[in-house]
C-alpha cells in the first residue's frame, strides 16, 4: 500500500515539489533561528561561562572604554578561590551589533595555550609564542575571511600574520583572534601600555564564583579604577543584552516557520484527499479499513513534510557548518554552529508536523460516505 502513496505523490509531482520546497525553506529558517538560540545558550551556560569571572571597569560596556591596570592581576591572584588570572586586551572593529565582527584578544601566549580550550588545526604554538605580530585565528573567522596559516591579515590599525587556526569546544572562542598582550597594547591608536580591557579569572574547584566576584570588587574599590566582576556567562549576556532581546523574540519566527509548514502541508493534503475522495471510497469497498485509509493519508503528509523538512534542515546545517556565521557586539560574539541537537529537532519537528498536517484529511478519508462518494462523476 506504501507504493500507492508514493505513486500518488509522483502523479501530482508539481504540487509535491512545491510543497516539499516550501517545507524545506521554512525548516531552513527554523534551523537558523534554532542555531542562534543554541549559540546564545552555549555562550551563557557551561563550565567556561559559569566557573570563569570577568573583571571589567565599572559602568563601562564597550571594550574600548574599559581600561584596567594590568597589575590588578597580582591583587586578584591573592584572593582565596582564584586559581589563575589572565589580563586581556580586547580590540574590535565594531562595538555595535554586526554579522562580521572581528575581535582580537591580546594575552600571554603561554597562558592562552594553558588555560583556553583551544586546539590548533593548523600552524603551531611555537611560532605564535615567538613572533611578535603572530596571531592564532578561530575557525569561524578563518572560514568567514578565508584565512590560512602564513596569511597577513590587516584590519584597521592592526596587522597580524596567521600562525595557526584553532577550533574549540566553546563555539564563541572560534570567533576570536588571539595575539600576544604586548602586541595589542602597543598597537597604534590603542596606547594601552600597562593597561588591559579585562581580567579573566579562573577559579579553584571549590570556590563560589559570586563570593569571589564580590571579594575582587571589594578589594579593588580602593584602586585607581573601580571594577565590576561577573561570571563570564552573565558578563557576555549583559554585553549582548540588546541582541539577547532580539534573539528571544526571534524564537517566535521559528514557531511561525513551523506553523507555515503545518498549513502548507495540511492544505496540500486536504486538496489531495478531496480530489481523490472517490478513490478512498473504492479502497474501502475493496476492503481497506478506515484506519488503514487514515494511515495512507498520514503517510502522504508525513512524507511531504519529512522530505522537505530534512532537506531544509540538512541545507541549514551545511550552510552553518561551512559559513562560519556569527553575530556579535561590544567584543562578545554568538557563534551559529550546526549540531546534532538541531538535526534531531529539525527531523522530529518535520515528523510531528507531517502527522498533524495529515490528521484532518486522514479523518475525511477514513469517514468518507462510501455510497455517495462512489456516485461522484
Amino acid at each position, binding site marked *: 500500500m506504501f507504493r500507492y502513496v508514493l505513486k500518488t505523490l509522483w502523479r501530482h509531482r508539481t504540487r509535491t515539489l512545491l510543497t516539499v520546497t516550501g517545507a524545506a525553506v521554512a525548516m531552513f529558517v527554523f534551523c537558523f533561528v534554532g542555531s542562534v538560540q543554541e549559540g546564545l545558550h552555549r555562550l551563557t551556560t557551561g563550565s567556561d561561562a559559569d566557573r570563569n569571572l570577568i573583571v571589567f571597569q565599572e559602568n563601562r560596556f564597550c571594550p574600548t572604554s574599559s581600561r584596567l591596570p594590568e597589575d590588578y592581576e597580582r591583587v586578584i591572584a591573592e584572593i582565596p578561590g582564584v586559581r589563575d588570572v589572565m589580563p586581556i586586551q580586547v580590540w574590535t572593529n565594531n562595538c555595535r551589533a554586526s554579522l562580521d565582527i572581528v575581535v582580537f584578544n591580546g594575552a600571554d601566549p603561554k597562558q592562552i595555550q594553558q588555560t583556553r580550550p583551544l586546539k590548533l588545526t593548523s600552524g603551531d604554538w611555537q611560532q605564535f609564542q615567538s613572533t611578535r605580530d603572530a596571531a592564532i585565528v578561530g575557525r569561524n573567522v578563518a572560514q568567514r575571511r578565508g584565512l590560512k596559516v602564513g596569511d597577513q591579515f590587516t584590519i584597521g590599525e592592526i596587522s597580524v600574520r596567521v600562525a595557526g587556526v584553532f577550533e574549540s569546544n566553546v563555539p564563541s572562542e572560534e570567533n576570536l583572534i588571539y595575539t600576544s598582550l604586548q602586541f595589542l597594547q602597543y598597537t597604534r591608536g590603542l596606547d594601552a601600555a600597562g593597561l588591559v580591557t579585562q581580567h579573566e579569572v579562573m577559579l579553584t574547584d571549590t570556590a563560589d564564583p559570586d563570593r569571589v566576584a564580590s571579594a575582587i570588587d571589594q578589594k579593588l574599590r580602593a584602586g585607581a579604577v573601580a571594577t565590576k566582576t561577573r561570571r563570564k556567562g552573565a558578563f557576555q549576556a549583559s554585553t549582548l543584552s540588546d541582541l539577547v532581546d532580539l534573539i528571544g523574540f526571534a524564537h517566535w519566527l521559528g514557531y511561525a516557520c513551523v506553523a507555515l509548514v503545518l498549513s502548507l502541508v495540511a492544505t496540500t493534503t486536504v486538496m489531495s484527499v478531496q480530489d481523490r475522495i*472517490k478513490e478512498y471510497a473504492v*479502497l*474501502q*469497498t*475493496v*476492503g481497506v*479499513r478506515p*484506519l488503514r485509509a487514515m494511515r495512507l493519508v498520514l503517510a502522504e503528509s508525513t512524507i511531504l513534510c519529512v522530505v522537505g523538512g530534512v532537506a531544509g534542515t540538512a541545507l541549514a546545517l551545511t550552510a552553518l557548518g561551512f559559513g562560519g556565521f556569527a553575530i556579535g557586539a561590544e567584543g562578545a560574539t554568538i557563534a551559529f554552529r550546526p549540531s546534532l541537537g538541531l538535526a534531531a529537532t529539525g527531523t522530529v519537528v518535520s515528523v510531528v508536523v507531517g502527522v498533524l498536517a495529515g490528521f484532518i484529511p486522514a479523518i475525511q478519508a477514513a469517514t468518507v460516505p462510501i*455510497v455517495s462518494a*462512489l456516485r461522484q462523476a
Partner: protein
Amino acid sequence: MALVELRGVCKSFRKGDETITPLDEVDLDIEAGDFVSLMGPSGTGKSTLLNLVSGIDRPDAGTIRVAGTEVTKLSRGKLADWRAANLGYIFQTHNLIPVLTAYENVELPTLLLKMTSSQRRQRVELALEAVGLSDRADHYPRQLSGGQEQRVGIARAIVAHPKVVVADEPTGSLDTETSEQVQVLLQRLNKELDITLLMVTHDTDAAKIASRQLVLDRGMFREVGLDETSTVSNA
C-alpha cells in the same frame, strides 16, 4: 441455509421533505453458485440492495446474512475486513486506481489478506489470465480500453476468491461488442469457477445470461423467465 439471506430489509431516503422507501420489508435468498440478475425500473432500489448486501450501506431495519455472517451487525472496520475476504465488487465505471498498473489494481485486495508474496503473485496472475489480460499487466488504466478496464475490475473482484461477487451494471458504460465480451466472461466465471454473482442491470441481454432473473418493483421481488425479461426492462 442460503448463501445470501435478506429478511425484512427496509431502507428509506430523505429527498427534500419527501421520504422515499425503495426497500420495504424485503426478503431474498440466493444460493451458492447462483448467478442472479436484478432488474427493475430506475429508483426501485436495485443498487441500494447491492450496496446493502456488500455492506457499504446499512439498512434501516431487517437482517442481511452473507455466508453465515450477519453483516448488519458488523462495525465499519470489521465490515471492511469482511469485504476483503468474502466479497468482490464490480463497478459500472470500473473505478480502477489510476496511479496503479493493471497488475497492482488486481493485487490490491490480496494485500489486505494474509498470504505469502508468491501466493499473491500466483493469484493475481491467475485472475488476469481468467479475464484474458495477462499481456496488459503493466499497463495503467489510461492505457486500457473501456472493456479492458472493466475486465481488470472483474479480475480485482475475483482475485481474493470471494464467496459473493456483486456487479452494479457492469456493462452499463460499454459498447455492444465489449458488453457481450464481459457478459461471456461473467458467465464463464460463474460456471467454471463457481462464483456466486448478483448483478444489477438495465441490459436485457446481460440479464439473460444469469441463471435467475429477478425484478424489483415497488419493494417486491418477482422471479421472471427469459421471455419476460425484455418486457421488464422496458417497464
